[in-house]
């Protein structure tokens, strides 16, 4: 008990030192932030003397992770959007019509006339002239169905087709609806992310929440309305004829052409015709798939007018490349292999499965796939955030000093030990917060202040116990040993129960509540560590040096 071997001592101090080192950058917040920004800028090629100077503000060998400041501290905007996933069903079904028509047309002898009827949203009602041929029609349209490539929807196809009298009814299958919902939300998420990244704000949070919601938090933006405007702008996706390929960004493209960089081949530029053949607005679907040789590819489908334009262009330009351009960057420039008449095509290239998935997402990401309803929006002005930080700083400092003084008054030298542990404790909380990249919110600061108050609890338990054991006059060494031994179960039980509530808060809570739960939970871990190991080690070291005959706690 009283013997703590060397390696254990070293380990304890090393852990403390690590905690302090990790927390250190937060004491120089602005400076480290500038340093980090400059490093990123230099990596991206902006190697200016100014950036070099900023990068040198903080030594590279020191940790440079910072605690993220939450919206309530930094100011910014918060949006919770619900993706109207049903919007997509309608456009999908509308786009099916030309395909169905083209399929049934050769069968006119059996099915008679084909007429599109007014259909409820998300379904397609087609009346055929000869009800006798319904089975044939259903079978033919069923051939258009494509298998779904998801885990849950394995083995099912994307549409269901049934006949009712002379009415052919086509709907999306439930499995496809589910898959489509998921795609729609992922796609919306991707677009929102691209939109916001383009604006270049710091550390935006863009998360999917639940099945159909997206949480967007952008620090430093003026208002939620501004954020909505950014998200609302649609991406510009075009298909352009390629004139040439080169490495010089500044060469003369020629009249009616422009030069655009390639998105993934560094230093490669394409000269393309400015007028697009088709734009992304006419794309109704893009999905990862495989070509005849089993290589990853992306299949896509245009709406009626897009299909016609695309069909004509591909027929006339077999063998020449065309560029898929997104926001003035060339995503890929495949060579047209054959005439693509039906408005659906396939993009092959040296894709991995992941790349083809991403490309499909990007292609679909041209425009928001469905409307967004904003369920929650919050704007917090930077002034309020700064006020909160200032107030939080003062409050934490005063709380700290009050507790420190109180502990020394109550426990004398042992109080000083507890105080050193308390300071290390708070440093370690900040160190851990920085390490895991947690976000500090206002309730989070309250959690830290509460931890300051409660962190001494474990020490108080031990010290009170030592006092009691001293009364039975077994000598100071034995009293300290027993004090730690007997207080341990109370310390553990008390902290585990509080930790349970912190975990529940974390899993159930959102936003500010989560921030609070994180600091509270980390505070419990560090305070138990400092009380059980650090304070004890200090007492033992002091005891070894002084060898007092009696102690006063």
């Amino acid at each position: 008990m009283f013997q703590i071997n060397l390696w254990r001592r070293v380990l304890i101090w090393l852990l403390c030192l690590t905690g302090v080192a990790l927390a250190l950058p937060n004491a120089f917040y602005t400076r480290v932030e500038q340093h980090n920004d400059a490093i990123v800028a230099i990596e991206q090629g902006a190697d200016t003397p100014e950036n070099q100077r900023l990068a040198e503000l903080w030594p590279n060998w020191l940790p440079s992770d910072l605690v993220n400041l939450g919206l309530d501290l930094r100011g910014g905007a918060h949006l919770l959007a619900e993706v109207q996933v049903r919007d997509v069903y309608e456009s999908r079904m509308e786009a099916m019509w030309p395909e169905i028509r083209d399929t049934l047309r050769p069968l006119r002898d059996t099915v008679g006339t084909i007429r599109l009827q007014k259909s409820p949203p998300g379904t397609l009602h087609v009346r055929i002239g000869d009800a006798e041929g319904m089975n044939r029609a259903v079978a033919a349209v069923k051939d258009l169905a494509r298998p779904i490539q998801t885990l849950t929807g394995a083995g099912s196809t994307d549409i269901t087709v049934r006949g009712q009298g002379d009415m052919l009814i086509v709907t999306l299958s439930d499995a496809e609806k589910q898959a489509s919902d998921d795609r729609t939300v992922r796609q919306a998420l991707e677009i929102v992310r691209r939109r916001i990244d383009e604006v270049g704000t710091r550390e935006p949070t863009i998360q999917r929440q639940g099945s159909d919601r997206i949480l967007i938090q952008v620090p430093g933006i003026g208002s939620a309305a501004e954020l909505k405007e950014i998200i609302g702008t649609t991406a510009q996706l075009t298909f352009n004829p390629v004139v040439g390929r080169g490495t010089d960004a500044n060469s003369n493209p020629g009249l009616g052409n422009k030069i655009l960089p390639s998105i993934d081949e560094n230093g490669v530029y394409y000269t393309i015709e400015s007028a697009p053949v088709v734009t992304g607005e006419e794309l109704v679907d893009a999905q990862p798939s495989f070509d005849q040789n089993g290589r990853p590819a992306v299949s896509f489908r245009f709406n009626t007018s897009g299909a016609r334009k695309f069909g004509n262009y591909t027929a006339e330009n077999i063998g020449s490349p065309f560029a898929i351009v997104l926001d003035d960057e060339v995503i890929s420039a495949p060579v047209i292999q054959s005439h693509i008449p039906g408005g659906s095509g396939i993009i092959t290239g040296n894709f991995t499965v992941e790349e083809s998935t991403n490309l499909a997402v990007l292609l679909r990401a041209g425009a928001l796939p469905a409307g967004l309803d904003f369920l929650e929006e919050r704007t917090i002005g930077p002034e309020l955030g700064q006020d909160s930080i200032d107030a939080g700083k003062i409050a934490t400092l005063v709380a700290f000093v009050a507790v420190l003084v109180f502990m020394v008054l109550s426990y004398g030298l042992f109080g000083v030990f507890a105080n050193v542990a308390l300071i290390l404790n708070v440093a370690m909380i900040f160190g851990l917060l920085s390490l895991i990249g947690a976000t500090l919110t206002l309730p989070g600061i309250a959690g830290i202040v509460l931890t300051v108050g409660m962190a001494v609890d474990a020490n108080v338990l031990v010290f009170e116990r030592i006092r009691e054991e001293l009364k039975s006059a077994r000598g100071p060494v034995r009293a300290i040993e027993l004090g730690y031994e007997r207080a341990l179960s109370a310390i553990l039980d008390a902290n585990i129960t509080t930790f349970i509530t912190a975990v529940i808060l974390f899993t159930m809570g959102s936003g500010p509540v989560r921030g609070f739960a994180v600091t509270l939970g980390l505070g419990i871990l560090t305070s138990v560590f400092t009380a059980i190991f650090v304070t004890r080690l200090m007492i033992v070291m002091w005891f070894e040096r002084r060898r007092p005959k009696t102690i006063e706690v």
Partner: protein
Amino acid sequence: MRLKLIPQETSIDFFKLWKVWVGISGVLLLLALVSFMARGLNYGIDFRGGTTIRTESAQPVDVAAYRAALDTLDLGDVSISEVFDPSFGPDKNVAMVRIQAQDEQEAVTPELIAAVEGALLQVAPDIKFISVESVGPKVSGELIKTAILAVVLAMGAVLIYVWLRFEWQFAVGAVLALVHDVVLTIGIFSEIQIRFDLAIIAALLTIVGYSLNDTVVVFDRVRENLRKYKKKPLSEVLNQSINETLSRTVMTSVTTLLALFSLYFLGGDVIRGFVFAMIWGVIVGTYSSVFIASTVVLWLGVKRDWSKPDKTGGNQFANVDA
């Protein structure tokens, strides 16, 4: 000389007046429930949807003028209150405007906010909108469900943990003390109508954690003393355990309160309600762990001999001959 809030050795008989404590708690609980029924909680927009706008202006806040300006917009229930904080200077006048969720609108409309901001600008041209927060009724309904679930789950988890570590009587005592604390906290929030929002739920759960912390420390000592003094009546063992841990109970409450009070006075008005809930919870929690949790254990009785199977159930005199 050491500062001692509690003498080294105390021998207060906590159960002599147990009827008084239970009586006081009973009356307070009843008051809390009555207040909750009669007035209800002043739910923030997190829980009932709507919009809050925090404004700041160099001119003094004229609540009547603000109200008159907003009345023309026909927004239903609008509440306007001035916010005071010692840190505000004379040219910093802050008000909170709260607008109910508009009928049949799941989402938040920017037009509404723009209209409100425009109307207020007419009254005070230099007004700034420091924060604007809107929550749709769809989300607020979910938030309140999750919040209640979180509190219930936390209590359930604690019940199970204490039951596993101690005996079921202790678990019941601990949880009753927690219910006591939570009900009283909700009571005070309904009585003085402080805004009840998501952060307050965090405070409630912290109170649960804190109160439990206190209760468990006392119980831990009871368990130890029950093993040590097998023949002492339960009431004496409980009393002795509370007395032995009293110094620690008070010390910890005081350090926590020191920290909380500094937050209350210096931490700004945004988290004042949150901190208030915690201060109240620490005080009530300390009281309940000393007076309520132990009384419940005394009522229920505890199996005394830990080495033999329990024959007579939970009677406190079950093992006098052990």
